[in-house]
């Protein structure tokens, strides 16, 4: 393998930054959630790259566990979004302003 490991880390950093911008800019709760998924995937890519760099499988195990946690988190988060939609009839995060000062 000739590709330097830092190339993968830079792709991972760019994906993480794009996900951050997505979370901050978008208003649709579903797209915000997708951006969070993008960030999680970026971190997983970094973990697998580090596993390759250090020559052991601990990073891959950690990425696998984080995938399991992400699956559980997506299911609960989507259920919450559906519940908010039922109450407010909108998936826009600006509309959920009951606790706004």
């Amino acid at each position, binding site marked *: 393998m000739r590709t330097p*490991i830092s190339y993968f880390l*830079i792709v991972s950093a760019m994906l993480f930054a794009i996900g951050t911008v997505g979370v901050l800019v978008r208003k649709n709760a579903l797209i915000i959630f997708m951006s969070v998924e993008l960030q999680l995937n970026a971190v997983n890519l970094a973990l697998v790259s580090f596993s390759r760099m250090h020559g052991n499988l601990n990073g891959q*195990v950690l990425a696998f566990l984080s995938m399991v946690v992400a699956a559980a988190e997506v299911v609960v988060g989507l259920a919450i*979004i559906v519940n908010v939609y039922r109450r407010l009839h909108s998936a826009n995060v600006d509309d959920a302003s009951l606790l706004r000062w």
Partner: protein
Amino acid sequence: MPLDNVVFWVFAPVSVGSAIAMLFQRNAVHAALFLIVNFFTISVFYLVLGASFLFAVQIIVYAGAIMVLFLFVIMLLGVDREETLVERLKGHRVLAITLGAGVALELFFAIRAGVGFATKAPPSFDEAVNSGGNVVALSRVLFRDYFFPFEVTSVLLIVAAVAVMVLASRPRRVFTRAGSETTSEDTTSEETT
């Protein structure tokens, strides 16, 4: 030019491009489809990095299960809704993009300081670490060193499944002590009287 280099330079622009395209989509279904493209490119990176088990898991769990769930919820909530472009906070979008660029820059410098741009992976990964195949090697680590965290995740999955069943059940049924079954509106009125 070695093969993994070619694969990287083909898939890295697709990966970043699909992520940016997801950011600019007004339609939530198109954003989900771009995210699926992005997940596929990440799974290709896993294959290049010698994590063939995670390659399969990425496609099955993320591109398969999670994105189908996303699309299902998008369909449930209605896709024809356009997002408003009104800014509640003034200058919020510019500030957010500046912050994102800051995060990217910071990570860039962190990679330069911590790893260095020319660091190559040890070439003998497949012989030394992935002996007997990636799945066998990974299961050896997972079931020996990380057995307890692995079992804890199964508890997490059960808790998540039960929580979603509670969250998503529409008419909240309450079982009273007498065994009769009433909806929540009825019980609240009963409790107040």
